[in-house]
């Protein structure tokens, strides 16, 4: 059965390593914070100027001056710090943040990503995404395998304006975990109960499928 958004987030959380600073994008990536494995100590960076983001505040304790990059009210954990946007992107550009998780409209088999513009239709802007993808050593894309029209978002080449080139290393969708290397997608894991055939049929880009494709494992 395909994963829901929480399932995608939970699978991505398994990639976290102890001691990492992590930037989570808007949408599914934000949910990753709910599934930090036991014994793993990570700290969340929000590019609007926070290190040490905590959970949402309790009702009535919201602070308009304390929001994350998705403009949601949040809290901080002990040891947090605040800083300006230039320092925040110094952390990102300077590769002090070990992992970036973000959403995408399209990903291509050479690691290109598009997530900020549909010409003539929608332009929200790239926000911090271009800085993040151009800088991060580890980028995981969290997204649905297909768009609402049923078309694959896992492509030979992106059709939309790019956010970054050759930067995505891993994609986690409701169906599969894909690694990008040597200009191809590599099927690493499938969602519980999802067939390799379904994944192949929903993937437009070149997909390398090993003989055995393990199911994702959740505790």
């Amino acid at each position: 059965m395909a994963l829901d958004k929480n399932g995608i987030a939970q699978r991505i959380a398994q990639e976290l390593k102890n001691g990492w600073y992590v930037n989570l994008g808007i949408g599914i990536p934000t949910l990753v914070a709910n599934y930090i494995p036991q014994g793993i100590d990570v700290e969340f960076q929000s590019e609007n100027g926070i290190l040490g983001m905590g959970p949402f505040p309790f009702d009535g304790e919201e602070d308009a001056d304390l929001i994350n990059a998705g403009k949601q009210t949040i809290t901080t954990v002990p040891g947090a710090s605040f800083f300006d946007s230039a320092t925040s992107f110094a952390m990102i550009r300077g590769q002090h943040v070990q992992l970036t998780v973000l959403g995408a409209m399209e990903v291509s088999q050479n690691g290109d990503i598009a997530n900020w513009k549909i010409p003539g239709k929608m332009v929200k802007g790239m926000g911090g995404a271009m800085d993040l993808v151009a800088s991060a050593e580890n980028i995981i894309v969290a997204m649905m395998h297909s768009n609402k029209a049923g078309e694959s978002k896992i492509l030979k080449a992106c059709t939309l304006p790019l956010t970054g080139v050759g930067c995505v290393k891993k994609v986690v969708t409701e169906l599969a975990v894909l690694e990008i290397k040597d200009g191809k997608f590599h099927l690493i894991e499938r969602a519980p109960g999802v067939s390799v055939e379904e994944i192949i049929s929903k993937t437009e880009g070149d997909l390398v499928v090993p003989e055995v494709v393990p199911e994702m494992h959740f505790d």
Partner: protein
Amino acid sequence: MNKVVKNVEDALVGIEDGMTLMLGGFGLCGIPENSIGQLVKLGTKNLTCISNNAGVDDFGIGLMLQAKQVKKMISSYVGENDEFERQMLSGELEVDLIPQGSLAERCRAGGAGIPAFFTPAGYGTEVAEGKEVRVFNGKPHILESALTADFAIVKAWKGDTEGNLIYKAAARNFNPMMAMAGKITVAEVEELVPAGTLDPNHIHTPGIFVQRIFQGEKFEKRIEQRTVRKND
């Protein structure tokens, strides 16, 4: 060096049609709301606004968009604003979208006398069009230039009569760099205190960057996405 002006009217004297303004804030957080209100009242037109976001339809820079005061927006993210999207797609509004980190650094560079710097952000995208590309450490970078403004308008939590500013939490965001990059920098603060009251170790924006300071009359501090968890 007393920088205090009486009120928002005095603070914005000299802003004229066609000028370039920087406006601090991220989303609706840390925006100079009193000054934006005054700009709408003044009706100044053909402005180029440098601001990470463009507010929402009925708050922040959204109010200036409604009043058609803005000729061009220089921003990184402009979602959450229907009127903005309409004006942009119809071509009424020029929009220059810049990666957020490049925007922040370009403002800082403008204030710091650094005319240009290399960054990897945007390489291979339309942001890089027409820009010099150079490879450092095997990685392509693009050359980005400094941004400055006729007026930079920022919002701080506390300020003193010398123009020293302290921001609160995530309301700091773009304010410090924009304060550096304005030919004239106006700061509106929630609390204005005498010089010597603030700890010199805690100042975020030294007064040298601020030409005018005033205590804002009223701060709505609207929350864009109120998210809470259940009390257990």
